[in-house]
């Protein structure tokens, strides 16, 4: 798998992922592969103190790879390198990542994988800088509503005090 190494901006930058069967394995190893799913995975540094991203051996409970990049059907007859260009989505959080491709058989079970980093997940990592989620419009509305709340409170208060002072 090959990627461009840089700090990628959520919603803007693109990743081009290329994957293919490792040519050194014995022929026929890939006979059960039906689908390839490419996922964005958290590097160990982004898993520290964040149990919801924990790596667990049981794949059903593993939470390392939470963002799907692409899924493609796999044809053993045509196992040349495939690639896909993906724009980093706007709900991808700021973190350090690597990419993994899982091969699934017909029963949707993971049977093989490959990743852009080493076994310890320390090399060739890249960072994503997420969108903040803030907008000028939202900020402005926030300020306006807050001012309205404070002004209407004090307005009401002074108005009532003034009416009370007026001779009945």
């Amino acid at each position, binding site marked *: 798998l090959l990627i461009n190494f840089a700090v990628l901006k959520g*919603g803007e930058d693109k990743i081009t992922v290329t994957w293919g069967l490792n040519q050194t394995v014995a022929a026929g190893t890939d006979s059960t592969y039906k689908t390839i799913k490419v996922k964005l995975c958290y590097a160990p540094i982004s898993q*520290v*103190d*964040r*149990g*919801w991203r924990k790596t667990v051996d049981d794949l059903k409970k593993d939470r390392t790879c939470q963002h799907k990049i692409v899924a493609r059907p796999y044809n053993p007859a045509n196992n040349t390198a495939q690639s896909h260009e993906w724009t980093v989505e*706007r*709900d991808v*959080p*700021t*973190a350090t990542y690597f990419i993994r491709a899982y091969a699934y058989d017909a029963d949707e079970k993971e049977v093989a994988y490959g990743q852009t980093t080493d076994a310890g997940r320390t090399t060739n990592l890249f960072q994503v800088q*997420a*969108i*903040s*989620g*803030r*907008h000028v419009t*939202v*900020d402005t*509305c*926030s*300020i306006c*509503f*807050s001012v*309205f*709340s*404070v002004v*209407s*409170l004090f307005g*009401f*208060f002074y108005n009532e005090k003034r009416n009370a002072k007026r001779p009945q």
Partner: protein
Amino acid sequence: MGDIEGSPGSSMHGVTGREQTFAFSVASPIVPTDTTAKFALPVDSEHKAKVFKIFSFANPHMRTFHLSWISFFTCFVSTFAAAPLVPIIRDNLNLTKSDIGNAGVASVSGSIFSRLVMGAVCDLLGPRYGCAFLIMLSAPTVFCMSFVNSAGGYLAVRFMIGFSLATFVSCQYWMSTMFNSKIIGLVNGTAAGWGNMGGGATQLVMPLVYELIKRAGSTSFSAWRIAFFFPGWLHVITGILVLTLGQDLPDGNLGALKKKGDVAKDKFFKVLWYAVTNYRTWIFVLLYGYSMGVELSTDNVIAEYFYDRFDLKLHTAGVIAATFGMANLVARPFGGYSSDVAARYFGMRGRLWVLWILQTLGGVFCIWLGRANSLPLAVTAMILFSIGAQAACGATFGIIPFISRRSLGIISGLTGAGGNFGSGLTQLVFFSSSSLSTAAGLSWMGVMICGCTLPVTLVYFPQWGGMFFPPSKDAVKSTEESYYASEWDEDEKQKGMHQQSLKFAENSRSERGKRIASAPTPPNTTPNHV
């Protein structure tokens, strides 16, 4: 007023000593109705309502009840609004588990102080303005969530929003100006319980609002920010309703509230002294930290727990988390009711046992909740835990009014603060560190609940007994009068300042349970008539 023979309120005709603390209405011989007043409900001589008609909106009494509990409910919604959205917020702000835990602690800590100040504010401005000021000045803090960019900002905003929980004080204060003291127990309990439901409702509503905003085209990191406009607007709308529809007193006159002289002004220091030197106060402060406190902590962690542990969708986790808080609708009143039923047969000893049983059972189910590995079991454990903890809250306030007559206000305030303190402490110890999983944290919290409930076995009233010991056999000490009069020194007794306490003592004989008939005539009490 009630001391002069023959004046309204002095007759004990019809008083059996078996009246419930929680009652829907007060019968006429006990508290006479002011027939000249033109209110929708029967009122007493101060124009406080004698009847609690839950589904009425009649001005001013029932309208005040609804404005009051709704404003408290709103503040619960905004204080815990972040909790069900944490799975999104933690990704947007790059939070660690300790960031999330600390913000949870902050959200309940602010009101420890604001609740203490709120009493004074209500004295100064009246409960209507006290409530409106707090709720409308905290609306900007809710809107501020949209600006948050970091863990520090998140913590600061949750801390500030948490100040609004002081509406508990304005709520209870306002109820006491509108409802007769014989039914104030049930009224306040219902208002508090329904307000607490906000912590449950928010878990349901916030994910829904978030989903709607996302469907309208927003990204997830923007949608959660915009979702906070919902509780923000609730604050503004409720504040305006309180200002326009509410009034401080049944007769609507704020000035008269300040001139009220019939309640003798007591020395603050003395009242504080008798509160803090009564060991029972501190036992209940601790206990409430492990009934109300754990309820608040659970409000903060339970949605995220179900989302992560069982891989649920955000709004499914929200629905489950909501049932925890919504159980308050019936669980808290149920606790108070159980306490009353036990008191009818076993007096105060029954109340203590009921509290211990309910709270300990809550702890046991909490242990189970952390250990439950399947979703149906976890939900069952959670519901049973919520009933135990919330009923224990209701049962606690079935006992608090009897700890002291003179210092009831401060003891209630201290107990409430103890609830928030217990919540902050629990979140800090069990839910802020990655070395302890949330599941383990819940189980350990359950163990701590069971342990911290044990001190209730130490509570002993000489006139009524404790959990394991019967009342004192001493002829003087075994009277209610002796217990309540001991809060006044000789000087004060000479001035007759303890008369209200003596009257309360007489009424509290119901806490003897079935032994009322054999209650000995207390020696040394000044007879009311010659």
